[in-house]
């Protein structure tokens, strides 16, 4: 392969590659909240547990910012995927 970054999957839930993330940063979109929403990185079933630290690393390297200065996107409940039936059964209605 000519460009190995095409083959490096950063977000394995939504198949986002290192190349796609770097291209977006090169296009001027460097905010993690915007990268997340445009590429859906971190929005799959793992909710970013695997990929967000990697994305922060890429942004830091490409923009010269410190990783600790890049805010981590909000963590959403539930903490891990839960079947809807379990949650519905817990409902007080009817």
């Amino acid at each position, binding site marked *: 392969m000519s460009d190995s970054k095409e083959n490096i999957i950063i977000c394995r839930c*939504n198949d986002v590659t290192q190349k796609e993330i770097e291209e977006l940063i090169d296009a001027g*979109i460097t*905010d993690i*909240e*915007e990268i997340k*929403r*445009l590429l*859906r990185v971190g*929005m*799959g*079933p793992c*909710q970013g547990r695997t990929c967000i630290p990697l994305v922060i690393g890429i942004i830091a390297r490409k923009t010269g910012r410190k990783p600790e200065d890049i805010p981590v996107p*909000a963590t*959403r*409940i*539930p903490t891990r*995927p*839960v*079947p*809807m*039936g379990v*949650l*519905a059964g*817990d*409902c*007080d*209605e009817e």
Partner: protein
Amino acid sequence: MKSEAKTVIIGGGIIGLSIAYNLAKLGAEDVVVLEKSYLGNGSTFRCGTGIRQQFGDEANIRMMKRSVELWKGMKEELGYDVEFKQSGYLFLLYDEEELESFKANVRLQNRFGIPSRIISPDEAKMIVPPLNTEGVIAAAWNHTDGKANPFRAVFAYANAAKKLGVEIYEYTEARDIKVEDGKIRAVLTNRGEIKTGRVINAANAWAPLINKMAGIPVEIPIHPYKHQGIKTEPIKPGQIEPMVISFKHGGVYLTQEANQGGVIGGYELKYGPTYDITPTYEFLRGVSYRFTQLIPALKYVNVIRIWGGFYAETPDHNAAIGRINEVDEFYIAAGFSGHGFMLAPAVGEAVAELIMDGKTDKPLDFYDPYRFERGELRQQAIQMG
């Protein structure tokens, strides 16, 4: 950052960006958009993705008809795929009273060329195979309604606006507006001052704060309510194509995202007025219960997240759009009550026409910001979620 601009738009959501793009398209120069956080963060990125023409009043029907025309051509016009899909809206009806009211809506929609119709529960089941039609006596269906990707739509407008010379400043918060003798002089931000003679308040949930900065003496009641959305893991594509709505189940709405494949939606549970958008367990349980009532097979599907966002509500659930006479060149387009995303293309066009041409053929009178003070509330817009 520029120190001077002809027009300053406050709010980098889809409304502000659509107005910016349309102004530049009509030849306006020197337009600046201020966003206090990142683009879309207020309400646009938190919305339920739906785009519908099935309203119960003429103005919203006409505005949405124009919006859908623009949504259809957006990929071509803005040069970026916003994943617009006309997958329809299906309102489930459970009693005669509901049916009569939707029949009247359909008649009105048909008059304006919207091809909505009343269908049987069997037809509804054909459109959405896993649907539970128990108790459903009919449904209101319009196949030209649809959905789009809010994230892509925001960037489509932002990029197209930039190409026409609009400057967009993120993390730039309007802190005050200088007004002298009824004329706007400048907007003060956390990054300095921008001299300007025109401000457009597109801050939706925060619009009252902007009105206050400019000393707008008109009572425009817009209150931020927390609503929430839910998203499941992807399921086999094409099972829940339209937006499915049931008012009998607490204003629940749900659809399967066209490209991601997960089910997304919400219901009427709301908190506020508040600027807190922390998600709640009460919502997670309530929405799961309602989704599984409508689509029982969702019991086996995993929830991956819930999130909060605002409905910037007015008393009649219609936005305040127009010119404010007491402060020269101050405009407002805010208080969309959950309908800003779908309305944005037509609103941007109408507001830009109003500013550039002094008039528009779109029914902006309906959204008159003075109607609250005059006690002329409109018929409540059909709202769900």
